[in-house]
């Protein structure tokens, strides 16, 4: 069809333009592009230690990516994953410090998820019942979360015995597998399970079916008797809970404490993970892995003098190009 020919031409132009930009950026880096790419590959996948680091980065991206994708399938842009993640992380740390044993750790995970859900609730309610775009509310909530978690760590939950600003260390430890000296922590396992769960839940439950209907065609969904508003609020709550859990698991399985700045923007990267993965929850796994490789590799090539920012550029390009390829002809409503 003529329309798709023009569309393909446009998309190829975009792809070519992006490749050009990236190539120019790499040329500018002063280091030969080949070295940059090999440095990136070695730093992220070249040894068991490298793999461990990559998988460590991948875990929160995967779980948060599931959170974002669930929202996207319901037609909601949950940009607030970062804030929900922070709230969940701090809640988990505080709970696990004060409640002993495995039960305390478990309670920490639960309260972390609840905290994330709570933090997503205003956005969901405002969107469903007031029509206020969830992008704005979640961005606002992100900033509030960042400020308040930082303040709480500094003023209320700070461990005075530590030099840096942080909560106390959690005593409990989560199990970790180490096949071939590569560390696979509980957060990664949780992320994989979550992706599998989402794939199953969307296809096999009535609630999942209704969520997808609302996301694809809210009008037809209402004609079919689905309560659009309830579905939207529940979707935001679930998305927030998953994001909160991602933060909680980072604390419980990786950092073992909460400190300001432990997240280099996992929530924002998770948006890219979900957008790249598209519609299938299982595609989140390779997508998150790609981002994990870029994160870990990006840290590695900093030694080569390549600033970390190149990773952000790559991510932005990936987001835009994948969206261009995915846009249906006719565009339609962007609201």
């Amino acid at each position, binding site marked *: 069809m003529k329309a798709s020919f023009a569309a393909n031409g446009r998309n190829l132009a975009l792809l070519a333009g992006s490749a050009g930009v990236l190539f120019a950026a790499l040329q500018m880096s002063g280091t030969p592009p080949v070295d940059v790419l090999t440095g990136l590959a070695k730093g992220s996948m070249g040894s068991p230690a490298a793999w461990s680091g990559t998988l460590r980065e991948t875990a929160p991206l995967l779980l948060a990516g599931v959170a974002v994708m669930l929202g996207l399938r319901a037609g909601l842009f949950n940009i607030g994953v970062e804030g929900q993640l922070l709230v969940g992380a701090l809640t988990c740390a505080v709970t696990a410090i004060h409640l002993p044993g495995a039960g305390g750790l478990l309670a920490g995970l639960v309260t972390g998820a609840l905290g994330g859900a709570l933090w997503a609730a205003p956005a969901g309610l405002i969107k469903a019942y007031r029509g206020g775009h969830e992008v704005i509310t979640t961005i606002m909530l992100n900033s509030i979360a960042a400020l308040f978690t930082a303040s709480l760590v500094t003023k209320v939950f700070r461990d005075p015995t530590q030099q840096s600003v942080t909560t106390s260390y959690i005593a409990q430890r989560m199990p970790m597998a180490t096949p071939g000296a590569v560390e696979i922590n509980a957060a990664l396992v949780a992320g994989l399970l979550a992706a599998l769960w989402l794939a199953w839940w969307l*296809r*096999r*439950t*009535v*609630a999942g*079916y*209704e969520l997808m*209907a609302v996301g*694809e*065609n809210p*009008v*037809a*969904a*209402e*004609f*079919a*008797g*689905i*309560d659009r508003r309830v579905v939207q609020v529940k979707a935001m709550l679930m998305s927030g809970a998953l994001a909160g859990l991602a933060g909680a698991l980072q604390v419980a399985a990786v950092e073992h404490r909460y400190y300001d700045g432990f997240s280099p923007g996992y929530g924002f990267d998770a948006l890219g993970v979900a957008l790249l993965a598209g519609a299938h929850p299982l595609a989140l796994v390779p997508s998150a892995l790609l981002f994990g490789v870029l994160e870990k590799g990006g840290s590695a090539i900093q030694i080569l003098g390549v600033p970390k920012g190149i990773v952000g550029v790559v991510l932005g390009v990936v987001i835009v190009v994948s969206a261009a390829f995915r846009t*249906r002809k006719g565009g339609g409503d962007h609201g």
Partner: protein
Amino acid sequence: MATCHAMGRLQWRGPPLHQLTPMPVELQSPPSVRMTDISKSFGAFKALDNVSLTAHAGTLHAIVGENGAGKTTLMRALYGALSPESGSIELGGKAQHFGSSRSAIQAGVGMMSQHPALIPDLNCLENLILGAEGGPFLKLGAVRARAEELASRLGFRFDWNLPAGRLSPAAAQRLEVLKLLWRGARIMILDEPTAMLSPADGEALFGTFRRLAEEGATVLFVTHHLGDVTRYCEEVTVLRAGRLIGAMPVAQTSAFELAEMIVGRKLEPPAAYYPTLGPPLLEISGLNAIGTPLRDAELTLREGELLGVIGVDGNGQRELLRAILGLQPQVTGNLRFAGRGLQHIPTGKRVQMGIRVIPEDRLAEGVVEDWNLEWNSVLGLHRLPQMVHGNLVRLGARSRAAQEIVERFGVKYSSLSMPVRSLSGGNQQRLVAGRALYPGAKLLLAFQPARGLDLLATREVYEGIRSACAAGAAAIVVGFDLDELLANCDRLMVMSRGVLRSPPPGVERNPIVIGQMMVEAG
């Protein structure tokens, strides 16, 4: 005279004849509009077939016909919105070729569509001048003065700062008239101008057009309402199925004749069907939706009944069905289904109770374009007991149901996992109809159920609706094709200006009577 002849057969119920004839027509000057042998096709569909029209300055000229007769297409050709394949257009004796609306506007042609094209959040003054500002700087003082002057000439008053979205329908139409004058229109085309107005507002609007005609304008009306035609217009042109049926001074014809010409004499009264009726299933009284054409609907539907609701589009049919489904906001009045009041029951529950719908716009309201056939087949049925096990989907039951639904009316498909987008419109309609008639339907609300279907498929769909009714359900079918509804429904009601009326006893299925009720000739 035709009118005397008509009086012998039927009773004249209009205003006294001597009040019917407005100002005399000037026949000496060249016609202000002469369209000759205009033809236009859209693909295989011939919208206009050698249609001619002649109109004179200082007159109100009506163009009448059913939905799809070609009235709007003819006017769009005059307005430059489309180019005819053959034929010519002369304005005031001079030949014209309009490449776009811009040239038509410059030649003094203005068109006002049925739905006001006002931008709601701009104020009245801004809407008035949008597109005809007269320069990069808006001299608001001068603009306002000229607007006031124009408005007062017609007896209008506007709060120029009021956002246009807050105008009443009548006021919005008045602003649209002012827009035409602002742009210097001498030939005004009005598409169903009184469709959304109350009788009083309509009369006031026609008074305005009368004044404009007295000043020498040519006013062309596209309309269904023969009452307006006989009360206010001097000349009338009748179209049917893209062809010119006749053109004459209004004084030489009657509303009944016009109705006959519009509807055509091809109808044979279809065989009546007398179903066994059960207890009342749906009871509606005083149903009203604020801000919409739905005024005061009342009906009682009994089990087993197939009710057809005929009427010109935009008289509240849409809102009626939505209100029964529970999707129409701000509804007041009484709505009872199977003895229960529906007012506070959410749509999901109503669907579970057996209310099924074939929606008006299958793409926007009926299916999810990107989904496959299986998922679309169960949209709305997905919570039925046989489809679920707790919160889990019974995949086997679902795909069996989808199979059944898709095959019910013979959807042509290759596999259940193909996207519904790839089906033709007719096949999509068959899917939606099959879904609505899946076992368990208690009340079927159908908006043009046979839209896009050929005669055979139409018959099958109606047979499906009939058997559901025979099993104890009831159906309301909203449509615009009188033939189709007469052939398939037990009884008909006419929806006009937000109110439902039944034809008088003895002529419940008389197409002429019903046609008149639709266009308010009586």
